[in-house]
């Protein structure tokens, strides 16, 4: 029995050491990516090409989801607010929910599953088919040539996508509340205008999306680069990207929110 306990403690210890080691390895990889970003910035066409794959190709899912989220918010908001005779505040509710929370968080979750997984799978497959090794043998650094452009493309496209998500979401709320249900259009927009604060709501939302963009893409490129070079390894890495970045987004969101909106009305 005591031997079993010792083995149990040992295995816990191993896991802790392994995860700390992996965290250190990932941080080192992240720093290397930043250091070797010179090529991407000098040859910006490399980043633009990836922007098309990560940004432009994520547009459909982001726009459609944003529209539906906004419509649901409008519907639910109207249901609740009309009980208190405050249905004209539905615009404020839709805009604040989207700008502060739902815009950054939901678009980052969608981005992780659409673009993050694709980045991991692509880099992982390049590794499995020896393309990264071939690049090394051609005296070209894969971190500078493959990883860094994808990283920066993700970091740039995430805030833009979140902005579009919130914008189309607000339009979705307008469609349901004003066009469909018949809330007064003037009060819908004017209440929203007076309640939304640029510094607290919009800027904080943008900061959040930037942090999420860095986190999701850093996780995606690391998992791809670190994937075991087999079909199983790549599929495992893709799953880890989605799971880890989703958890990271939600965890980071709590931390950022608690700093940003502390004591706010």
């Amino acid at each position, binding site marked *: 029995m005591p031997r079993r306990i010792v083995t149990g403690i040992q295995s816990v210890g191993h896991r802790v050491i392994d995860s700390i080691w992996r965290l250190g390895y990932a941080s080192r990889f992240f720093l290397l990516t930043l250091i070797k970003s010179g090529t991407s910035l000098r040859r910006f066409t490399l980043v633009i090409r990836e922007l098309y794959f990560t940004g432009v190709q994520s547009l459909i899912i982001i726009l459609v989801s944003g529209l539906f989220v906004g419509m649901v918010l409008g519907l639910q908001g109207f249901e609740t607010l009309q009980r208190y005779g405050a249905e004209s505040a539905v615009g404020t509710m839709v805009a604040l929910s989207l700008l502060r929370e739902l815009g950054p968080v939901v678009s980052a979750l969608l981005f992780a599953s659409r673009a993050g997984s694709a980045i991991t799978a692509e880099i992982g497959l390049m590794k499995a*088919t*020896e*393309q990264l090794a*071939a*690049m090394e043998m*051609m005296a*070209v650094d894969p971190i500078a040539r493959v990883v860094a452009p994808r990283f920066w493309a993700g970091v740039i496209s995430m805030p833009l996508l979140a902005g579009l998500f919130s914008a189309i979401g607000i339009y979705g709320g307008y469609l349901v509340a004003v066009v469909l249900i018949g809330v007064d259009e003037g009060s819908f927009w004017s209440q929203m205008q007076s309640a939304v604060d640029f510094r607290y709501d919009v800027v904080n939302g943008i900061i959040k999306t930037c942090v999420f963009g860095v986190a999701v893409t850093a996780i995606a490129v690391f998992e791809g680069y670190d994937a075991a070079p087999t079909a199983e390894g790549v599929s495992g890495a893709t799953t880890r990207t989605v799971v880890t970045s989703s958890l990271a987004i939600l965890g980071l969101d709590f931390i950022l929110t608690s700093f940003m909106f502390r004591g706010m009305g």
Partner: protein
Amino acid sequence: MEDASESLIEIQGLNFSYGQRPILKGIDMTMGRGKVIAIMGGSGSGKTTLLRLIGGAVRPTSGYVKVAGQVVHKLKRDELFRMRRKMSMLFQFGALFTDLSVFDNVAFQMREHTDLPESMIRDLVLMKLQAVGLRGAHELMPNQLSGGMARRVALARSIALDPLLIMYDEPFTGLDPISLTVIGNLIRRLTDALGMTSIVVTHDVQESLKIVDYVYFIANGVIAAHGTPDEVRRSVAPFVHQFVHGEEDGPVSFHYPARPYAQDLKLEGSFA
């Protein structure tokens, strides 16, 4: 053995192990300029590891590999990268960049390492593709190529910067007989035309003996035999004979080491 003064690659007392498991044990080799050299041996005999050691992808446990007078494992990363511009490696399945067209694959190193104008890159790429017979395929993507064509594009890519040395990792694997001959002849022709050195790691005996100048056999991490193709064909050394003629049993045993058969079947003493 080749004449050392004309050698491009010199390997002395090379040992390499993965952890506790020795892969190469005391390899000595000399490879002359302008030659095609084959390294043969069964699967898992350490042939590919030897290529990785020459390319500086892994470090030897002891001994050294010298390429053009420089000890590979003592080079710093930027020096190693400078040296790698003079060598190329053809991977087993080509390792073409799947997101780039045939043209861009061949142009890759020119764009990364030179400041050549795009018009000159275009001419050079078409010339390299012409050499492997695929000029007409320059607009295709790698997923539109057959295995043999992909290997030829990879060959065009590996001669893009006119290297001193090309290493081929199992270039004949999984090819039909026509592609096999095409690749074999291309290796020989390009080596002669460009004055480079080629190292071919393979276990395709018949195809490689037709095109190479010298053969090394590696078995269990040591050089089991070496010689010119004619010497190899005539060799009566048991290992070489078994390998060249593809015999099932010999020094390389058909059976994995095991306890006596009778003992495993629990038949001991029953016939006594």
